[in-house]
């Protein structure tokens, strides 16, 4: 199974996302922001980083990169896309997911091992988790506060689209402790924490993040 990882100028965790794909047993395929060819990948990861320096709003410029035109169109048609951190910001800017990410309420970048609860396991990216399972994976962001208006938040919760929620200390002021959400169909998932940094015990706090990558690979295998 081929999983594409997009590199924008300023992407930082692209190599880590590719590694996570490989650790999970998939083939990682590098996608370049200026290309339009999705290289026949079966799914795409938008990695963390500071695309274009994030000097405007985080993700606001990346959303207009040539590679995104095809990804946005495909995602609306059910193509699997995972946005991690900056990738989540790009998905919100692309209107594939509702809401926005704003500067952390503590006004500082925060990097730490974060406890999360997986609340939705019917997405393309979280089916290998048990509902309610608690996991610990790194979070590292300066603009990770998830915000949306009340009706959007109510709808997300009502439709069960909150994929992961912060447990314990909310690291960035996200409304209703939301760490990640999905679209209606569950093919598009965005989250601020970094599952790709929790796939091997040597260089991560746990291997709790691996499930995001095995979930999509198992699904792709099952449906191919």
């Amino acid at each position: 199974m081929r999983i594409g990882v997009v590199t924008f100028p300023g992407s930082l965790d692209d190599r880590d996302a590719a590694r996570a794909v490989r650790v999970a047993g998939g083939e990682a395929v590098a996608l370049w922001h200026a290309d339009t060819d999705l290289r026949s990948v079966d799914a795409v990861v938008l990695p963390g980083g500071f695309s274009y320096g994030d000097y405007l709003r985080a993700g606001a410029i990346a959303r207009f990169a040539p590679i995104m035109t095809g990804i946005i169109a495909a995602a609306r048609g059910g193509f699997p896309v995972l946005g991690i951190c900056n990738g989540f910001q790009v998905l919100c800017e692309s209107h594939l997911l509702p809401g926005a990410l704003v500067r952390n309420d503590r006004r500082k970048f925060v990097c730490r091992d974060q406890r999360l609860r997986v609340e939705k396991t019917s997405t393309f990216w979280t089916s290998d988790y048990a509902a309610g399972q608690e996991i610990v994976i790194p979070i590292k962001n300066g603009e990770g506060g998830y915000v949306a208006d009340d009706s959007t938040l109510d709808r997300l919760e009502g439709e069960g689209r909150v994929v992961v929620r912060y447990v314990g200390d909310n690291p960035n002021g996200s409304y209703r402790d939301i760490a990640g959400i999905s679209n209606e169909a569950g093919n598009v998932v965005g989250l601020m924490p970094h599952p790709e940094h929790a796939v091997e015990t040597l260089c991560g706090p746990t291997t709790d993040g691996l499930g995001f990558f095995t979930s999509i690979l198992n699904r792709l295998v099952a449906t191919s």
Partner: protein
Amino acid sequence: MTVDTVKYAADNPDVEQPYRELGLKDDEYARIREILGRRPTSCELAMYSVMWSEHCSYKSSKVHLRKFGDLPAETHRGKLLAGIGENAGVVDVGEGYAVTFKVESHNHPSYVEPYQGAATGVGGIVRDILAMGARPVAVMDSLRFGPADAPDTHRVLPGVVAGVGGYGNCLGLPNVGGEVVFDPSYAGNPLVNALSVGVLRHEDLHLAKAAGVGNQVILYGAKTGGDGIGGVSVLASESFDAATGEGSGGPAKRPAVQVGDPFMEKLLIECTLELFAAGIVVGIQDLGGAGLSCATSELASAGEGGMRVWLDRVPLRDTSLAPEEILMSESQERMMAVVTPADVERFLAICAKWDVPATVIGEVDASGRLTVQWLGEVVVDVPPRTVAHEGPVYHRPLARPDWQDTLQADVPDTLARPRSGEDLRATLLRLASSPNLSDRSWVTDQYDRYVLGNTVLAQPDDAGMIRIAEDSSLGVALATDCNGRYAKLDPYAGTQLALAEAYRNVAVSGARPLAVTNCLNFGSPEDPAVMWQFEQATLGLADACRELGLPVTGGNVSFYNQTGDQAILPTPVVGVLGVIDDVRQRTPQGWRTPGAAIYLLGSTREELAGSEWAHVAHGHLGGLPPRVDLAAERQLADVLVDVARDGLVEAAHDLSDGGLAQALVEASLRAGFGARVSLPEDLDPFVALFSESSARAVVAVRPESEVAFTDLCATRGVPYASIGVVTESGESARLAFAGLFDVPLAELRAAWTSVLPALFEA
């Protein structure tokens, strides 16, 4: 605006020049005139003044730094691939990999503008590493501030931390360690020392030289603006226009602190690595201090010929800049490469792919001179070596300060000591919650330690450890250390103790120490007492490196860290690089298994002068620092490396500031396991807990490994004592000292973690 050309200078020898304002002495200016056989043009004066500055020329330190060059240029892994004098030293670590690392100061800019000063400090050292042909893989920061509760510390520290984080995070480099130290002597003189480490294959090594007549000189990266030109504006705005009787049409004085753009630097890194991979870089140099003046003169000086530069081709962010200012500008995120004419097109194409502006601004020639043209006229015509490598060298007067004896005689023996269990408990808590020993998470949580996916250990571990490549088990470990109080008490021994601590920290993690870098932060070299401290520090470091078999691969000197005639504590920060063959065998810091035995390694003497206890409990500094025992350090390190390789210990932590007490606190809190400790009976409990004798560590050993472990210690002659056992984690976890006192970990953690947030979160 008239330009001061070489011809004009030759024809008008008597023009008054503001060399003193630029920091040049009368005799230095006279020497420039002698070298050139005429007065310098204002561009030449700008170049010489900045290249002959203390910062760039090392004119006060050079004679003392030669000692490092005399050390054997090899490690147990082989000869150095590059040593002192290059942008950064390069060490062979095996499997065809090499590692380059260096630490550099950005102290003064960080005081003036904390965020940008610190940010560009990180940016600068990363470019040094990149220029060697390496992919930068991690950064560390060694920071010193005034008193934690001083208002100015609250101005400086948050900005410095945000700057280190803001730049490094956006660059995608994990920050794996460093130091944060508070002392009144750093009020007004904070120290921001940034370290970077990079990895390369042996064949990828690149050096800074302009070789091959006809080769093109390409400036790439950010456009040039008015950053960091500071005092040099005097040339454009005062001297020359004044001298020619014209009005001041030049740009206004500009801020002396550079502004960083980490996004551009990230592009520069990826672009440069692709250029290396394409094999089209003949020579390369980063632009840091002294900007184009430094890059052009150093490249030309290290090459075999000369270089001509068309300065008006330099892309400008501010078109009002005068040529002197363009030569001086310290605009960040710029590199200079030497490329064969045939490869220029490919070079420019790769830059274009990464959206990095690139411009051919010169070429290598056979003239033996560096010439710079501005709009068709020659404004610089100099022998490049006289600018870059043959600056002034001073033998500054040095004198052991008259207060040194008094200071050393003021021993801490009569200070009131805690005796009862209750008092010892209070002292342990007070130290753990002191600004220097408390939890650093408030700082380090602002740094990404995970990016690149190869971080094996990061602070608060004793050393940062990086896996060298995803498909290899080879790793490197790094630690930086310095206790400035020790260095004040005895700069020779204090510097050796800094080395010993960093060496021990690397060994504790399971890596074998390999090479040394340093950042020597001192007061004014014009003060004979400071110069004596400096000389002692370099002697101490060189002697200790020789004894431990470690080369010094590079370093940095920062002088003039003082307010009025009050110098900072001498602060020779020492960085040690180690190598570990299998990173899976690294030793973590924290206890992990209840029932594991806790051993204290090394000898404890009553050594409290300069200690954290004397500082916190009594505000006292006097006496002699702990005894240096390099043979014992070496034996201890050998044991620590071997037990890691053989899997005989499950945790290890070095003893340093705060002694055994603080080491046990940290090893317990790291993973939340308690410990029950019986202090050695032959020692006074206070001394056992708080003495700072060197060459010591604590380790945890599972019962099945104890025999093998103690046998090894005995064979190697490392003193060992079983002092306790690891106990349960969870809510009832405690750190208990038999017969004396115990502290619930929850109480300890609250005391330890609340300090920096309470100080800086307001």
